[in-house]
């Protein structure tokens, strides 16, 4: 089993530009530390109709209402999540869809880099951010190659390339993004790795409620029993493996 950069085709070039958007990085950093309620706020606003803050502040009384904190880190994060999400919502429909996808991938990468097992030796990096070896172990847009198996066309969104603890992760904005192709690709990676006596965890990260994901999975006939589901409420598990 070996990992390889995806081919720099036209899609990859366009998508690289989306991933490099500073708004993507800003939103991802906020959402990596957000509470479940703040993540629901982001999900709602990024796919909402209203582009002003007042409607959203009204809809989320636990974050902005009379009983919510009026100051402090939590309130500041709520305000920042709302502001960043509104910026996403103000993009055109196609662009906002791409930006949302890139944000889910960036949040996933940030959280996976926090794993202690993937952290390597700290050398002057911010707490919680994996340096050196981990930076090399957690990658984006990578293919996984197996002997005698034709390579998949689509790269995995995030990979953990730590020997003995490898992981292939695909990221989706919503439960509706779960489909047979994605499930087959993830399960194929896991089984091909097993054929080579390698351990590889297949994970699908969905920025949507677990309940919706389970409903979606219920009717899927593609193999997924061995694929780990990380939903909006359980995102923080990515940091713990």
């Amino acid at each position, binding site marked *: 089993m070996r990992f390889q950069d995806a081919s720099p085709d036209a899609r990859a070039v366009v998508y690289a530009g989306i991933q490099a958007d500073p708004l993507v990085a800003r939103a991802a950093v906020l959402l990596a530390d957000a509470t*479940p*309620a703040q993540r*629901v*706020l982001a*999900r*709602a606003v990024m*796919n*909402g*109709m*209203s582009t002003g803050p007042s*409607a959203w502040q*009204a*809809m*989320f*009384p*636990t974050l*902005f*209402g*009379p*009983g*919510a904190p009026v100051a402090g880190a939590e309130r500041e994060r709520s305000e920042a999540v709302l502001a960043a999400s509104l910026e996403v919502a103000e993009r055109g429909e196609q662009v906002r869809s791409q930006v949302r996808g890139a944000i889910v991938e960036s949040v996933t990468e940030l959280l996976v880099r926090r794993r202690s097992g993937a952290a390597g030796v700290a050398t002057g990096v911010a707490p919680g951010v994996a340096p050196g070896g981990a930076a090399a172990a957690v990658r984006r847009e990578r293919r996984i190659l197996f002997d005698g198996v034709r390579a998949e066309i689509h790269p995995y969104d995030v990979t953990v390339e730590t020997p003995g603890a490898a992981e292939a992760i695909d990221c989706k904005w*919503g*439960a*509706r993004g779960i489909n047979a192709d994605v499930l087959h690709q993830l399960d194929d990676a896991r089984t091909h790795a097993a054929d080579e006596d390698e351990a590889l965890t297949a994970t699908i990260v969905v920025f*949507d*409620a*677990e*309940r*919706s994901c*389970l*409903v*979606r999975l*219920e*009717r899927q006939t593609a193999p997924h029993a061995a694929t780990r589901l990380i939903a*909006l*409420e359980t995102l923080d598990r990515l940091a713990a493996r």
Partner: protein
Amino acid sequence: MDPISTVGDAIAAARPAYDDLAAFAEDVEDEWSYINDLGPAWIERMDAVAEARGHEPAAAGVAEAVPALVAEVAAIDDPHRAIDWLSTFPQVLLVALGERP
């Protein structure tokens, strides 16, 4: 919309909008099964909260949150977005009620 003074009132006031959203989402025929699985799954969750906490007074801001949520989904003009909101709507409502999604 009837006045909202309890958790049960809030869920009852939100439900018609959710039903409308589901009906609109059905315009996407390829997703008929998902839509008709998803709606009942979330209605079950909302009903469970109504049964457990329906008599509790609604917290501050809930009476304003529900009409804002209903207005938000009423503005949706794309059935594909409506499908996404079939999942998002109950999450927003539950968070407003102090529940985990």
